[in-house]
């Protein structure tokens, strides 16, 4: 669970305007109130961000003090020519492609169903949301066991209906879909809750009116629910894409990025280069490139939100 994933849509219009000239200014108390946050923010976010940027231009090493020799754009040039960088970036994108559609569509469908049901809503919330609050390590332990060849529950279940299982985590072609399936199970609850909340915002009268007009449930969904949930879907989609791009835990825990690096994500590549190969400068450069990717996705989000707000 990540606190970033509950980002409210930024509404620049709400940023307080300039203070009215007639009222007194509170400069001094304001500094006092902002100081604790500002100190930590500068020390642990802005400072490291600047230091990381600087470091990316040096051959810094984990086991040598200081920045090491100046590398100019050498680390960036190396990363752009490094097939492992591109493959881990692709694995990250591939993971995002595999997880995002089911996490949006399935969460939407299940929330839609749950919204129509009056009984036992707490049970559905529990069932879908409980996995989401588990630590990734717990999820990984359970699913590694589920995927175990010969003894795993999935292989046994499929064998009953006559399907021969591949080596879920052992086959380079199946490992990523297997991780994606685990992730869908794990994080579906978050989107489910977002959609459920969105659904409850839709005025009941709309449904009642349309029912009186003879609309079938399917027509209601198509003509009322889906259009009314447009904003929620934008939010869910962007949060989902960003969360998926930042994937690390599942690979690290379940496949160690294998087999044969087929599931190494970009963050794991940063980890491998920086902390296994000791190449901090290079890892910092890869981090910066990854940051640009996330920024680009965020920029797309902003423009989508802007457009939607204009439409509303």
């Amino acid at each position, binding site marked *: 669970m990540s606190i970033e994933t509950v980002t409210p849509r930024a509404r620049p219009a709400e940023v307080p305007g300039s203070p009215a000239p007639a009222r007194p200014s509170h400069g001094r108390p304001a500094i006092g109130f902002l100081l604790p946050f500002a100190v930590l923010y500068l020390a642990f976010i802005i400072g490291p961000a600047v230091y990381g940027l600087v470091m990316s231009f040096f051959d810094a090493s984990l086991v040598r003090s200081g920045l090491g020799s100046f590398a100019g754009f050498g680390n960036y040039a190396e990363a752009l020519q490094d097939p492992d960088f591109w493959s881990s970036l692709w694995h990250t994108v591939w993971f995002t492609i595999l997880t995002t559609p089911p996490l949006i569509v399935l969460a939407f469908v299940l929330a839609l169903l749950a919204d129509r049901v009056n009984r036992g809503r707490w049970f559905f919330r529990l069932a879908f949301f*409980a996995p989401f609050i588990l630590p990734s390590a717990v999820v990984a332990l359970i699913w590694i066991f589920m995927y175990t060849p010969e003894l795993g529950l999935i292989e046994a279940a499929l064998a009953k209906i006559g399907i021969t299982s591949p080596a879920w985590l052992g086959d380079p072609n199946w490992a990523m879909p297997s991780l994606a399936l685990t992730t869908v199970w794990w994080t579906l609850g978050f989107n489910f*809750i977002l959609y459920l909340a969105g659904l409850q915002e839709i005025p009941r009268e709309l449904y009642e009116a349309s029912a009186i*007009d*003879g609309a079938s449930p399917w027509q209601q969904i198509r003509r009322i629910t889906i259009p009314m949930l447009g904003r929620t879907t934008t939010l869910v989609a962007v949060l989902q894409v960003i969360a998926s791009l930042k994937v690390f835990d599942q690979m690290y825990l379940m496949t160690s990025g294998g087999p044969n690096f087929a599931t190494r994500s970009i963050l794991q590549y940063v980890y491998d280069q920086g*902390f296994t190969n000791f190449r901090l400068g290079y890892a910092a450069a890869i*981090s910066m490139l990854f940051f640009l990717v996330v920024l680009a996705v965020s920029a797309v989000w902003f423009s989508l939100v802007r457009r939607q707000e204009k439409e509303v």
Partner: protein
Amino acid sequence: MALTTMGGAGVTQEKIEQRHRLFNRICFGVLIAFALLWLVPLAWAVDTALKPNAETTRTTWLIDNPTFAAFQRVLDDTAILNWFGASLITATMTAVGTVITASLAAFALSRLRFRYRNLVFWIILAGIMIPGQVLIVPQFREMDALGLLNTYWAVSLPQIPTAIAIFIFKQFFDGLPRDLEEAARIDGAGWFRIYRQVVMPLARPAVAAVAIFTFVTSWNDLLWPLLVLTNPDLMTVPVGLATVQGAFGIRYADTMASAVLGAIPLVAVFLLFQRNIVEGIAGTGLKG
């Protein structure tokens, strides 16, 4: 709306209602099926943890000799109790630190007028754009230089300044009525007293949302504590489970028992605070 034209001739009101009832019943069935499917992995983990190791090689839900021995072995052989302690300390430190610093800053942004307020607000807004994960390399160096590696401070401190918490608080403060604090102002109360005695008591829902989220996020974090906590006695639950998982080898009952034990604290948190968590997500995610 175009819907008014949809009333088909010949479809009686009763028929429509019947159709809706049927549809709702199908919804319920599908939903139940999915919910049960979703619970299978958790149930399977608990089931396996209650088996003796020798029985885990048969893929069946039945347990011939149910036992808590696997839990006992995990408690004896791993430092899992230490991990609980470490997780509790780091997550509490992070949650408390976040609530305090973010609510103070949000109060200033919501209630005080000062120059560059917009600028400050935008700088904090920009912080949301930086995913913490891209900073692990410089942050590790920093913690090394500060001599904080293998301490809980290294885990907590970088997690405390979260811009999003400020937004949640600010949004909440903006919605609070101002009569009470204006009365307090007239009585000569300082800003800090207003913050502490007037605004914060009213802001309990926001405090709960931020505290619970931060606690759960911090408890579940893997990458960062994996880097800074390398001593097995100091590890948090996720790091401990991730690091020593290989030690169990093919003793599946033990592995699942460790997973179940690792899950228990947060399941408890979830059951206690289910409504806060759900409303927190819904509220902060959508109404922003």
